């Protein structure tokens, strides 16, 4: 047992053009994708936009063993069809202001707007509903997951800067948060690869109490309570108030604590991709590390059958009760009638993880660091909450807001506090309050801006993302489509496309195909060698 596991993180960014109130969000999101394509083109001289291959997408498969009929699905669940952006859609959006031409139109008149890109680091950058989304490449551990999540923010920022610098376009602001405080929430999903043989009932039962309480070590904080922010007060989590069910397939309505989407993007009979939708997007690197690291450890315990047995009496209500209490003192009731705080429940999971790691000899440095940080964070939060401000995003935000409120003699209902909540998540270093704090050394980091910029263009070396990223960098003109589990090539002289399946997330690594890339073969020789 260790924290090693295939992990990928998704970020849906909030998108706003302040100079164009009411601008169509899908259009703005498409601008972001096309602007990034333009910046890549400017640097490398080729188009990095690649059609997404939807062949293996199955968003209506339920991990509990059935498939939801398409006719009963909410339209937003149909993520396996290419979104189209045309006059009709703009018209359907009623009061929205059309944004005008896109960067892509400007440079390639007559061609379609890019809605999807596969990046040289193996990530996917695309328009998801009404938000630009970055889905990180597959990584093998929480530390790399943090790096490639941060790389997404770098990509998004590059796109926003390109838009800002382009004549005829108004600046587009991007926010790494999860709600507009006006009823809408958008996610920061986590994906963890698991063996399929682990019973889903067991996964859900053990994860629910963990997810209900995990927020205290890694959520991002929010001003306002209720989906509409209609009640005042600071709360721990961005997402908590938007959850209404314990287990379910949906991600946009009736959101469940444990999501059952069964779309492994890998060999179906071997793997499950646990799709976690409950987390907050984090600017902070340590919060992201703890979010993914502790979850990875709990999944390992579930797989080994050593996860603690805790059952909450009312998990959905408890999720919100805990989020609404930044003193961390509130207790929730277990089905065995015990009353415990979120810290106490987290401590039970940590103790079990420590014991399990000791028994299984998991003494690798990464696992030990996650255990140490988990312990330290719970201890600090239990004694002096604000002392955790350097590593826990909601605490850092709360402390900054409290200082501002004190200084100006205002309460948390003041619009300036609401603005701080929003601007905390502005991804521009000169405007984002997280970045303003980090620049002063007030947020602990794992990676430098240079390392993050490098990760935005370089794939991880130890997953199939290496193959995906490198073919896009080395053979961009021949890659006609890509997905998590395939890449399709057009080979000169060949009558049909060559589709290379990548159903094993831990193949396609540098170790396995690095030399083949370095040989710099023609695309035909490259493909024929691959297939051998």
């Amino acid at each position: 047992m260790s924290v090693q596991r295939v992990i990928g993180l998704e970020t849906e960014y909030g998108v706003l053009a302040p100079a164009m109130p009411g601008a169509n969000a899908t259009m703005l999101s498409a601008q972001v994708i096309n602007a990034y394509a333009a910046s890549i083109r400017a640097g490398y001289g080729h188009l990095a936009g690649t059609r997404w291959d939807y062949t293996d997408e199955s968003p209506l498969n339920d991990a509990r063993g059935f498939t939801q009929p398409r006719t009963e699905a909410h339209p937003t669940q149909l993520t396996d069809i290419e979104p189209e952006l045309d006059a009709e859609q703009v018209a359907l959006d009623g009061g929205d202001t059309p944004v005008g031409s896109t960067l892509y139109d400007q440079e390639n008149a007559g061609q379609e707007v890019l809605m999807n890109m596969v990046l040289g680091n193996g990530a996917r950058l695309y328009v998801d509903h009404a938000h630009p989304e970055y889905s990180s490449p597959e990584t093998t551990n929480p530390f790399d997951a943090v790096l490639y999540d941060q790389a997404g923010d770098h990509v998004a920022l590059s796109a926003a800067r390109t838009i800002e610098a382009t004549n005829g376009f108004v600046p587009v602001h991007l926010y790494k948060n999860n709600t507009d405080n006006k009823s809408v929430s958008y996610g920061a999903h986590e994906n963890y690869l698991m063996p399929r043989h682990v019973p889903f009932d067991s996964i859900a039962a053990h994860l629910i109490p963990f997810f209900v309480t995990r927020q205290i070590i890694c959520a991002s904080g929010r001003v306002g309570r209720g989906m509409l922010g209609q009640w005042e007060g600071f709360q721990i989590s961005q997402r908590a108030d938007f959850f209404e069910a314990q287990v379910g397939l949906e991600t946009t309505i009736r959101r469940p604590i444990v999501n059952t989407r069964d779309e492994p993007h890998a060999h179906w009979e071997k793997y499950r991709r646990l799709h976690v939708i409950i987390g907050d997007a984090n600017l902070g690197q340590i919060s992201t590390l703890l979010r993914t690291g502790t979850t990875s450890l709990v999944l390992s315990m579930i797989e080994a059958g050593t996860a603690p047995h805790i059952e909450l009496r009312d998990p959905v209500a408890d999720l919100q009760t805990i989020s609404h209490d930044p003193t961390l003192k509130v207790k929730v009731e277990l089905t065995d009638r015990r009353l415990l705080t979120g810290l106490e429940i987290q401590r039970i999971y940590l103790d079990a993880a420590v014991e399990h790691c000791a028994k299984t000899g998991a003494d690798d440095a990464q696992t030990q660091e996650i255990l140490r940080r988990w312990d330290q964070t719970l201890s600090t939060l239990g004694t002096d909450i604000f002392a955790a401000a350097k590593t826990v995003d909601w605490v850092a935000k709360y402390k900054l807001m409290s200082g501002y409120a004190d200084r100006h003699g205002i309460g948390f209902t003041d619009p300036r506090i609401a603005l701080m909540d929003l601007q905390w998540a502005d991804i521009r270093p000169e405007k984002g309050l997280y970045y303003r704090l980090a620049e002063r050394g007030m947020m602990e980091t794992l990676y430098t801006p240079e390392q993050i910029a490098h990760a935005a263009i370089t794939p991880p070396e130890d997953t199939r993302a290496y193959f995906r990223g490198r073919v896009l960098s080395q053979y961009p003109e021949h890659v006609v489509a890509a997905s998590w589990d395939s890449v399709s090539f057009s080979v000169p002289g060949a009558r049909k496309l060559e589709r290379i399946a990548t159903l094993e997330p831990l193949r396609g690594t540098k170790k396995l195909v690095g030399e083949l890339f370095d040989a710099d073969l023609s695309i035909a020789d490259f493909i024929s060698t691959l297939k051998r």
Partner: protein
Amino acid sequence: MTQESFSARRTEAEVEQEQVTETVKANTQDAGVDDLLDEIDGVLEQNAEEFVRGFVQKGGQ
């Protein structure tokens, strides 16, 4: 979830919130935060109320 149950819990949490505000005041002071508080009004967008009201998003996952 009904609005009633939500409000009831909020009241409970609000009481606790008052308690934390007490303990919080003593230790929000530190150099980095103070330094940022000095410049923050120049960093924040103009017209807070209007800016926040204008941040309207469409549905997401």
